[in-house]
């Protein structure tokens, strides 16, 4: 039990910090409630999916610098295909862009395996490629997301005293992440992803196919990326070909969330909590009408200092 605690200590600390921040928010702005929670969650959606995608790849021992560009590809594709689409077609589009995400991710992974170049090089080059693809699909913001599908992530889950506190977007996020993550975490594939990130030689000796697992990890990340791109299009209602600021934010949240660059360690909860922490910090600074430039400094400091602390703890741990 004690060991379990220490294993999840970092995540528990983050959850504590999140609760603290929520309390602080309530103190700064007594009217903060359901609608505030909703706007935080909706803002968090694309970051959360981008972060989840990055987490999967990093756990597998890689890194994907093309996450934001792939989100743009998915976003414009969905917006173009959904324009004026009926119910069936809309669902088909959703399936299609999820498949598109998986395919893009798989291509990234396959190139990493085939070229034997470092992940960071391949995915950096591919980020230019995916940006270009997005611009070929839509030169300027355009297309339209199916309105009723947008409703799915808008507003409280249902009218009523208690449930009205829970935003639909939070439910959507939780359900989708769990749909991908829980089965994965329990499956042999999920274990293999951790295994190749932790110790590729030992994984190979345990019967894991390293190349296939790497491709699969990138493909799963691609599916999550597709959810992220879709969530951007659903929240703005249109498709934007220029990648949003999700890449570095996702890497930061992943590291803050306790996933070790290099692989094998960490989960999804920590990074997602880190996403919410970063969103709420921004909200609080806006509520306090802090100079927007100071907000950038605060975000950078949180990243550097928290990770430096983590680094010092890790060095200590290695010595012990």
């Amino acid at each position, binding site marked *: 039990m004690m*060991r*379990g605690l220490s*294993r999840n200590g970092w995540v528990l600390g983050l959850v504590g910090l999140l609760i603290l921040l929520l309390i602080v928010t309530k103190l700064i702005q007594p009217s903060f409630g359901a609608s505030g929670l909703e706007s935080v969650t909706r803002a968090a959606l694309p970051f959360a999916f981008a972060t989840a995608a990055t987490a999967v790849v990093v756990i597998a021992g890689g890194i994907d610098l093309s996450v934001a560009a792939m989100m743009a590809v998915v976003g414009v594709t969905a917006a173009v295909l959904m324009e004026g689409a009926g119910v069936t077609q809309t669902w088909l589009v959703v399936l299609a862009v999820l498949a598109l995400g998986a395919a893009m991710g798989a291509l990234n992974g396959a190139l990493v395996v085939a070229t034997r170049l470092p992940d960071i090089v391949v995915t950096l080059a591919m980020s230019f490629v995916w940006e270009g693809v997005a611009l070929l699909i839509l030169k300027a913001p355009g297309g339209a997301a199916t309105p009723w599908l947008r409703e799915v992530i808008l507003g409280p889950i249902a009218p009523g005293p208690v449930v009205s506190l829970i935003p639909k977007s939070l439910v959507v996020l939780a359900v989708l992440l769990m749909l991908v993550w829980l089965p994965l975490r329990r499956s*042999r594939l999920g*274990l*293999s992803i*951790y*295994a190749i*990130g*932790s*110790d590729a*030689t*030992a*994984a*190979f*000796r*345990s*019967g*894991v*196919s390293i190349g296939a697992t790497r491709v699969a990890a990138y493909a799963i990340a691609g599916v999550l990326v597709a959810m992220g791109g879709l969530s951007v299009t659903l929240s703005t209602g249109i498709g934007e070909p220029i990648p949003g600021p999700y890449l570095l934010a996702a890497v930061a949240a992943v590291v803050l969330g306790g996933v070790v660059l290099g692989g*094998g*360690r960490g989960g999804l909860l920590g990074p997602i909590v880190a996403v919410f922490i970063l969103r709420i910090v921004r909200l609080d600074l806006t509520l306090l009408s802090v100079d927007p430039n100071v907000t950038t400094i605060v975000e950078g400091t949180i990243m550097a200092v928290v990770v430096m602390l983590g680094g010092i703890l890790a060095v200590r741990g290695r010595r012990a």
Partner: protein
Amino acid sequence: MTTEEGSTSISMTDAAADAPILDAQGVSKRFGAVVALRDASLRVRRGEVVALMGANGAGKSTLVKILTGALRRDGGTLRIRGRDQSFGSPGAARRGGLVPVYQEPSLIPDLDLDENLRLGGTPREPFHHWVRELGIPDPPMDDPIRHLPLATLRILDLARALASEPDVLLLDEMTAALPTDLVERVLKVVREQADAGRSVIYISHRFAEISQLCDRATVLRDGATVGDLPIEPGVEEKIVTLMLGAALSPAQARAREATGPATTGTPRLRVRGLAAGTKLADVSFDLHKGEVLGVVALEGQGQDELFDALAGFRRPGGGTIEIDGQPQSFRHPADAIAAGLTLVPGDRAEALLSSRSVRENIAVPYVARPRHWGPIAMRREGAQVAQAIERLQIDTRAQGEVRRLSGGNQQKVTIARWIAGGVQTLLLFDPTRGIDVRTKRQIYALVRDLAAQGASVLFYTSELGEIQAACDRVVVIFNGRVVDVLDAQDADEPMLMRAAYGLTAREVRA
């Protein structure tokens, strides 16, 4: 709960039991310039426990990896149950009935035990049965593997292997890191496996285990099978001879003057009650100016910790280190180097900048301190490096990157580094591991030469013949303590071997 496979297997016919279940012939394997296996052959019948013997670097682990699909062989044949077979991966080997416990722990460090079992598809019931049998009744299931002690990891690896009911179990130095009580249990379980008609390939440096457990021994030397003998009383001597080969008979080796250095006065290095980690308990000795002091120990007796502590790589848990009478405390290898203690580690991969040139490798200690960060006196460095290369006769035709050098030449580079700047006290950890006989000779000569010029050398070796070839005196370490100190002239191999196994030494001392 006990499984019943024993009674079913025992009914096998004698004829079937006689046909080899595994038959490897002429296996070869090279890693770049290093020839790990030249001509290795191994044959195992049903119900048989075969010892695979050989000095460090003889190629035992490489052979195990090739048999189980972890490495691809360059040449040779492998027949399983009479049919030609090659396994593409350890997973495939397991499905084919060959299950290894590798020399290095093979559980995933960041997964917990439960997850590791699921990953490997290990059946639970048998696993838990074997863990209990092996004396770890209650392994922590939800703790990352990297938190567990090495001994536990070895047992878990074994239990995992046993649970998949292998036809051939391959154990690579399974017992090296285990305390005595666990060793006993392992031996018992392995014996039961054999009695149940399963086959075992058993690698260990401990003769006591071999004679207690094994039916036969196959001996590897320098990557080739050089003998195959039944285990019977007195076979140890024959195995030792085969393992070491004729190349270094004591008579040949003692080519040097027997004039030892003065062992009086303030020693260059004085070690008292040194303890470190869990293995190094209490070691004391003196190393004098101009002396080569041998260190002999079986695998895992604390010698790694001793050298690491002396080189500033790890902080001792107790005891003192004095140099020329001055007490020392090292926080970083740089401190030890400043005090004149320089380490050549056993694993040359640890010491080499493999993607850099010979010259840069040799000159790196010189630029270590910030006041030498400026322009390098290239001429002087060139001369210095050339002199060191000359002295060690390093073959530098493949100058560009040291990883393209042969293993022996790589090893020489790790030593040359310290010769270039003038050496005071050299800590050599098994410097001749995996290198050819001629190079070995050169290294002995060099060591003697350095000593003659006033340097001191602490010389750990896993090849006992080297003690007489290179050393003045020898300390034998067992269980983290010095159990014997001998003059090198008196320390022939059988004597050292027995001392290292903790046999005669104790009698002698008692």
